[in-house]
């Protein structure tokens, strides 16, 4: 089968790889019909995530058709169209039972701080991902969800990560009606977080980035204010002024380890790797939120550590809420929101490319070429 193949930082290609096997009684094999490149895939692509082995197939956002199921699978059968949450969850451990499906303890032997994630290095379990024609899906009775018959596959594929992560970013903000919410990062997750902030009753939503085309997209898609930090002398000072000098009620970090905006962070975090990526967006978020405010983090960082003003977190009494999205917990509500027209996931998609062009797709997304917001990869076998 064809699959994306990581060869080293900024080097990927499509190769023939062996068809995946059922390795556990509750496994399924899914024929992929759509997969996306996520902003967090770029951390892998840039070589920033430890234990990313050459030969890995990335891709944690995918949908497909069940081809084969293991002997204990009861909820799926061959031919079902499923969307597969990016996190691999057993449904039985103490964390899954609390609805923390992003923190499963039975899906990742290599690290205890993160659950298993498809195609996200051995630090997240060593699974191959969905940027391929076929993929092994563990715990088939837990995560995979049947796609409603009337749902557009382009909407469904974004329900595997982008929509739940953006929604949970807003949810974790504990937004009260009338709150001012600042979202750092106008990538797909940030734009979705801005969109969802309104659903929680935000009174004002501001998004900060440095790419004009993304800011313009955010203004249209999320009906929010959007500002370019490159044109602001100091984004924190700007936000203080804009919020009556007290700061935002809620700040959301939707950037993570690849943030631009600080030479110090870029050199120490991305070039020398002395910290787990560049954390300038998180730094700004801490300093922009009001005293007693809430900081919601969904941006992805590496496992070592980052330079952030933790003293200000203490002194300002900030509540920090963060997690990988609990996709399974959120899916019923979000599927309904999509069906009711409150969220238009496929509106984020700007590029649809064949899987065979994966190297170009990564380059376009990573270098922000051709006004790229979100790329969907479609294997040629998708239409069989």
């Amino acid at each position, binding site marked *: 089968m064809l699959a994306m193949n990581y060869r080293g930082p900024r080097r990927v290609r499509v190769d023939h790889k062996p068809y995946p096997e059922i390795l556990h009684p509750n496994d399924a094999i899914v024929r992929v019909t759509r997969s996306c490149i996520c902003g967090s895939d770029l951390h892998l692509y840039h070589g920033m995530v430890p234990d990313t082995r050459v030969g890995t197939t990335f891709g944690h956002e995918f949908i497909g058709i069940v081809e084969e199921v293991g002997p204990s699978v009861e909820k799926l059968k061959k031919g079902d169209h499923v969307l597969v949450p990016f996190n691999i969850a057993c449904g*039985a451990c103490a964390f899954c039972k609390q609805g923390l499906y992003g923190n499963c303890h039975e899906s990742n032997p*290599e690290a205890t701080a993160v659950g*298993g994630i498809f195609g996200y290095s051995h630090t997240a379990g*060593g699974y191959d991902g969905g940027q391929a024609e076929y993929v092994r899906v563990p*715990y088939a009775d837990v995560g995979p969800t049947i796609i409603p018959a009337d749902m557009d596959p382009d909407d469904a594929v974004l329900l595997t990560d982008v929509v739940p992560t953006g929604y949970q970013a807003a949810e974790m903000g504990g937004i009260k009606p009338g709150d001012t919410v600042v979202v750092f990062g106008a990538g797909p997750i940030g734009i979705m977080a801005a969109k969802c902030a309104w659903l929680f009753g935000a009174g004002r939503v501001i998004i900060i980035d440095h790419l004009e085309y993304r800011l313009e997209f955010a203004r249209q898609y999320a009906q929010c204010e959007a500002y370019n930090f490159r044109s602001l002398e100091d984004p924190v000072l700007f936000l203080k002024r804009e919020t009556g000098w007290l700061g935002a009620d809620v700040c959301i970090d939707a950037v993570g380890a690849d943030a631009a905006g600080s030479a110090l962070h870029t050199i120490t975090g991305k070039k020398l790797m002395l910290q787990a990526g560049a954390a300038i967006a998180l730094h700004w978020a801490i300093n922009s939120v009001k005293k007693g405010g809430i900081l919601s983090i969904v941006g992805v960082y590496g496992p070592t550590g980052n330079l952030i003003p933790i003293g200000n977190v203490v002194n300002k009494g900030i509540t920090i809420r963060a997690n990988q999205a609990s996709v399974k917990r959120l899916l019923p509500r979000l599927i309904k929101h999509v069906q009711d027209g409150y969220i238009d996931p496929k509106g984020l998609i700007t590029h649809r490319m064949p899987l065979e062009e994966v190297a170009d797709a990564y380059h376009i997304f990573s270098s922000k070429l051709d006004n790229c917001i979100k790329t969907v990869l479609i294997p040629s076998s998708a239409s069989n």
Partner: protein
Amino acid sequence: MENDMSQKYSHIKGWGIDADPENEPTYPMKHYTGDDHRRLDWQRPPQQLENVEVLHSNERPYVSAVFGTPLPPRGLSGVLRRKAFKYSESRFAHWLPLLLADRINVAEGFLDDLRRGHIPNILAERGWNAAWKYNRKGVLARVALGTLLAAGIAAAVLAKRRGK
């Protein structure tokens, strides 16, 4: 007041439909089940067979019930990875060797390609087709910079040889 706000934001479809005054810190983070003080005593799913080498964090006593199998550790990078897993996730001695192993693994992958008779097309792998299509000036600037650097190095080497 909220009615006034609903009016104010009537142009935003769905405004406030998920507003939840009970959403205070910790609420959406977990659904309390009383399992908080349980430890590793849940009914574990059946264990996937370990038919390849699986490194596991020393912060857990056993391998998780499922795991990925496609790329077991091997070669020099594998030696480093095995050593890294002797340290907890809290230690740089765990993560830095893994990053070094990743870089060594790139060279191993390159040699693997050659061994299998495949000469990797690095420009294509780096997506230069797309770069040429959408960022031609950037490509030309990089090529020019590379050429200048190479010419500079060559000139310096030649000058040094002449000096001898």
